[in-house]
């Protein structure tokens, strides 16, 4: 007699629409940062360029490729589950998780490097820098930090998906959760696609 039985089975269109709406809020969450970025960049174009040189475009590019590939593996895992090949699906998600790990490790070293150079907000070195550069690094940490949190959440979601595939809760007839997790993962990729040129490629 529990009231949860109202709609235990959320049909896939409903669930997907919910996920998309959630993605919209995520877009606007980053959107706020993009507004700040746009304004600050128009104010401090030269400083931004100079500061961006500190970032290693190679690392950024590597991470871009990593995320793009991981996006594809997730998409492929969805295809696999639709074709009822759960082994392949799990494998592909595992690859995605490994790629996520690579991304995070890269990020870790990148951040570590910056912090080693005292290029973090509030540091003694930062205080001596021009305003635009301080702002650039502030945005850099805020944007990539928030993005990294999303990578972690996406990773957790995908791990849950693997467990559910293993236990048979996700199958070719019932894969809403996997679809939504994949959508989330693509969003993570999508935001990075914008972050990469904005942070690493600015001239």
């Amino acid at each position, binding site marked *: 007699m529990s*009231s949860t039985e*109202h709609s235990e089975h959320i049909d896939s269109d409903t669930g997907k629409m919910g996920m998309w709406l959630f993605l919209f809020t995520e877009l606007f*969450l980053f959107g706020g*940062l993009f507004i700040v970025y746009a304004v600050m960049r128009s104010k401090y174009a030269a400083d931004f360029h100079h500061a961006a040189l500190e970032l290693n475009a190679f690392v950024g590019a590597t991470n871009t490729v990593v995320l793009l590939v991981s996006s594809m593996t997730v998409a492929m895992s969805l295809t696999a589950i639709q074709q009822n090949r759960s082994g392949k699906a799990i494998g592909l998600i595992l690859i995605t998780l490994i790629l996520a790990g690579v991304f995070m490790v890269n990020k870790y070293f990148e951040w570590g490097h910056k912090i080693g150079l005292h290029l973090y*907000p*509030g540091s003694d070195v930062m205080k001596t820098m021009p305003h635009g550069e301080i702002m650039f690094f*502030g945005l850099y*940490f805020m944007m990539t930090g*928030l993005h990294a949190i999303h990578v972690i959440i996406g990773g957790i979601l995908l791990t849950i998906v693997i467990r559910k595939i293993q236990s048979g809760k996700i199958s070719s007839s019932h894969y809403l959760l996997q679809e939504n997790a994949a959508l989330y993962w693509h969003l993570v990729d999508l935001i990075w696609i914008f972050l990469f040129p904005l942070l690493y490629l600015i001239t």
Partner: protein
Amino acid sequence: MTHSTTAEPLNYLNHKTGLWSWLSSTDHKRIGLLYLYSITIFFCAAAVLGLLMRIEKIAPGQTIMSAQTYNGMFTIHGIIMVFIVVIPGLAAVFGNIMLPIMIGAKDVAFPKLNLFSWYVYISGAFLGLYSQFANGHSPDTGWTFYVPYSAEASSNVVIALTAAFVLGFASILTGLNFIVTIHRMRAPGMTWFRMPLFPWSLYATAWIQILATPIIGITLLMVIAERTFHIGFFDPALGGDPVLYQHLFWIYSHPAVYVMILPAMGVVTEIFPTFSQKPVFGYVPIVFSSMAIALVGYFVWGHHMFTSGISYESRWFFSFLTFLVAIPSAIKVFNWLSTMYGGSVDLKPPLLFAISFIFLFTIGGFTGLTLGSLATNIQLHNTDFVVAHFHYIIFGGMGFAFFAGIHYWFPKIYGRMYNFRWANISWGFLFAGFNLLYFPLFVIGIQGMPRRYFDYDPKFQTGEVISTIGAFILFIGLIGMISNLVYHSKRGAIAPANPWHGVTLEWQIPSPPPHENFDEVPVITREPYVFDHPHTN
């Protein structure tokens, strides 16, 4: 758990009992009531703070509290009223209780998420309270958290910011749930233009909730980052831009005022046809005006920043759009009047509150236009005129619509009826007290009395004193109204299923509604407001 052994039929209130059955219920009606109770408690708390502020202001200089206390008080009064009371307000209470019923659904699309939203909400609300009492002094930034002051003030600002962030998250989840519900759960035959207007207003509101709230979320996060990690987004000493903060804040907070008022408009739009026994006048224009308010409301945020040094071009641009957004509101007012015109009008308490809504909203709206006009805004910005404007439009508008709604749906929600005389008398106090309280603020605002002033020039005292007297009268009215409702929710006479002879779906099921709302899924074959046999006795 003792089940009532009387013949009382099972409904959502009594099919299970015990506190836990409420705190774990995913029934949209019960969640709506959870919101109703928590919002009422927070409203009373913040209202008492309002009263205390009025007492402080009865004379210049210090009367009952220090400046520090006063500054903290209007801040927490504003935070509670805005983020905890009126933004969730109507949508979370009546939206939750009535939306699924009105569109013929058994529940919202994601019932568990709905319950989760309430928990998020209540955590945010308590965090907000905690910011008052945690060590250090209470936040004193105003509800707008303007930087750089909010980035420097060493009070519990971070806690308050986090609270607002968490509350925003609850608001997003509710909005998301409603949009999906409206898209996916309408009863068979209920096309978009057969949907009642309250759900329509919730739909417009929900879009604002999910698309505007994240902006304030990230903005508050940036202020938190600024305070804890010394990232200088807004701190001019580090190259940041204080006015950029104001942009971001109002990109959300202006649309948020429409989150407050749109559902209120939806509620009264339900009340007028029922109490006139006459179809809504101009159904389609009302629908489109809701959507237009939601959309255009997105682009006028700069009218809060006319004096902040934004560019000349954007000042007139924002002013221009501000005037445009008044048109859909105007359309609605005229539609309501025409709905009553020619009807068989029955002045029961819900209608009494609804027409007071029109009156107060009109005053609030017109003073909004005065503020939207560039020249006059320069004079009136941040004076008590603004305070009067938004109390008229939030309390007079949204607040009175809330009172109208609770008097309208009370018999449906509790299956009992309150006392009409009692309600009418309380209304008298509320209405008189309200106008006494806020009207003088327009006058002293025009004379130049700034807002957020602990102390003031004696020349403003007459206005301040009248205002304080009004607050006490209002206080009596509120106590009267709340006690009438609380008392009769348990003891009132048993109400029939359709006491007002309404035609929308919620009146076609028993009062209180059964747990699953409908025994069989209703099939809709026509427009929502058709009175085949108008009831005129």
